[in-house]
């Protein structure tokens, strides 16, 4: 306690110095990596390399500079009393809203124009008539994904409980709930990886379509439906970007958990848990809509 109080007062004496170049570099490297997807994979490799370097640099800096000991600076009107870092996360999440609305709106707009039946729906609405989309549950494994949905909901709960524990300064509960969130996040990604492998290899669902011969071999001689390639693209774009977000969240959670086990968070210093939590809950919300748009309708 006295130690953290000493660091706190030291931190307050150096206010305004808690800046870091590494988040900026992480952003630049991510942009380079994505740019490579549209140009050349070598560019992506450079971006990923720079990304790993920047994350490493940030981790090293975190060991020496006590970010987060001072819980950020507060804003003036109109965000009076809101910490700068929290405001930054909310603005970041606003851009994420636009991004995910874009890719999900694309899929939704395609889906509602088709006549594929909903499984269990009105039999008069025949799934085999004028199908230009997969009926729900016909290609994708809905029960398995439902399990994943419950996992993500549970992880949101454990995340918010970890924040509550931090607000109360209960070290054991911080560790317990952060670890639980981390494990649930890893489970989610693992199940999705399993699902991807099944779809990719056994169903022949690819982001870029596939040759008729391979499809016929996997589906007992059937011809490739005309909607197959578009369906695969929308599926992998949506779940892939969401999965990448979950994976990023898992990295953040791994960092929080490791730090928590070293006693890195206290009643006075826990804003990082709140910020990663906001991101994690946002990813949960994206999945809520994604589960409906991709799997159920």
């Amino acid at each position, binding site marked *: 306690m006295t130690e953290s109080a000493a660091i706190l007062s030291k931190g307050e004496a150096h206010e305004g110095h808690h800046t870091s170049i590494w988040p900026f570099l992480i952003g630049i490297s991510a942009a380079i990596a994505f740019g490579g997807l549209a140009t050349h994979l070598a560019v992506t490799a450079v971006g990923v390399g720079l990304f790993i370097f920047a994350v490493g640099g940030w981790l090293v800096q975190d060991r020496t500079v006590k970010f987060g000991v001072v819980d950020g*600076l507060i804003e003036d009107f109109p965000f009076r009393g809101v910490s700068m870092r929290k405001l930054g996360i909310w603005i970041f999440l606003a851009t994420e809203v636009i991004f995910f609305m874009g890719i999900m709106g694309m899929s939704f707009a395609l889906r509602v124009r088709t006549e594929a039946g909903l499984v269990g729906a*009105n039999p008069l609405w025949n799934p085999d008539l004028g199908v230009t989309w997969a009926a729900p549950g016909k290609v994708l494994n809905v029960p398995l994904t439902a399990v994943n949905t419950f996992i993500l909901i549970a992880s949101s709960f454990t995340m918010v409980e970890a924040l*509550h524990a931090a607000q109360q300064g209960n070290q054991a509960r911080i560790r317990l709930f952060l670890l639980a969130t981390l494990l649930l996040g890893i489970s989610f990604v693992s199940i999705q990886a399993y699902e991807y492998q099944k779809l990719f290899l056994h169903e022949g669902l690819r982001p870029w379509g596939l040759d008729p011969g391979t499809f016929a071999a996997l589906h007992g001689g059937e011809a490739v439906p005309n909607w197959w390639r578009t369906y695969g693209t929308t599926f992998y774009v949506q779940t892939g970007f969401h999965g990448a977000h979950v994976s990023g969240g898992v990295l953040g959670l791994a960092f929080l958990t490791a730090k928590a086990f070293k006693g890195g968070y206290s009643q006075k210093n826990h804003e990082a848990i709140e910020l990663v939590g906001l991101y994690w809950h946002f990813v949960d919300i994206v999945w809520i*809509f994604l589960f409906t748009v991709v799997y159920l309708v």
Partner: protein
Amino acid sequence: MTETATPAATRRKDAHARPYLQVMVLLAGITGLEILFFTPFPLIPHEFQAISFLLKWQIIVVLMGFAVVKATFVAAYYMHLKYESWWIRYIPLLPLIGVAAIFATFAVV
């Protein structure tokens, strides 16, 4: 303005109840309902399913409605938007409404 934010922020949140577990049960319940009615689980004979009387757009509206309710609960309680000022709520809400309107238009027109 250079002050630390901890005391005010913490006090405000601690003043409210934390129905985290109840929210989780609600989210799981709604998800269960979605799965029960809208996927090929043969838990209810088809002719008794409410879904069999619904048409495509009715099903889409019901399911998206469920998703909106779930998302609202997560944002309100887990992301603490219930206890934030409207200024903070506007940050994610305005792009959400704007882009949703654009894509709803694309979907319908």
